[in-house]
């Protein structure tokens, strides 16, 4: 019954590796997001997809590449991981992108780069 799920919950890896985080929502929403929360709990949007189309692409290194195979899934692939990538990554979804709709968040993936 989980609305927005992410895997894995924890990810520990070494610098230079490539890793992926998966996200799925079963709410039938059109729009999905990736956020990064740093150690000071500051939450910043990275990407947004509406019906598989990229609509928000913040100033994020191109080592980060989102992929949306269908509107229920939004995965995040990170190449050549750096120490500064350590953070908690949250996936979220909302019914539509531009209207005043609440966002539903996944439980987060804590990424630690050593």
């Amino acid at each position, binding site marked *: 019954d989980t609305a927005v799920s992410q895997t894995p919950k924890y990810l520990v890896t070494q610098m230079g590796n490539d890793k992926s985080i998966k996200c799925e929502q079963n709410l039938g929403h059109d729009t999905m997001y990736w956020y990064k929360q740093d150690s000071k*709990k500051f*939450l910043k949007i990275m990407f*947004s997809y509406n019906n598989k189309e990229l*609509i928000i692409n913040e100033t994020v290194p191109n080592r980060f590449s989102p992929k949306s195979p269908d509107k229920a899934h939004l995965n995040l692939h990170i190449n050549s991981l750096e120490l500064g990538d350590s953070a908690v990554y949250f996936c979220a979804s909302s019914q*539509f*992108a531009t209207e005043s709709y609440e966002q*539903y*968040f996944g439980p*987060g993936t804590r990424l630690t780069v050593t």
Partner: protein
Amino acid sequence: SQQGEEDPQALSIQEGENATMNCSYKTSINNLQWYRQNSGRGLVHLILIRSNEREKHSGRLRVTLDTSKKSSSLLITASRAADTASYFCATQSQGGKLIFGQGTELSVKP
């Protein structure tokens, strides 16, 4: 860029007391939303207030919005230990992007 600034950064109260958190923002908005984050969890939506609304209630929550001062407040009445969490305001403008504040850490002691 960060839109919202929250005040206070941390708040510690006794169970049964009221908790008030404030949020200020810089640009015009369509709506402002409040979210709660329990330790180690994702964010949970609490309440949304549109730019043409001044006050909204949901259970023990009361939110106000003053667009002339570009500020909002969240009041939690009769707080409980289970209200212990971080509370974030987030503004939404054209394009749908949510911009979050730094958050207020609320601790409610039993």
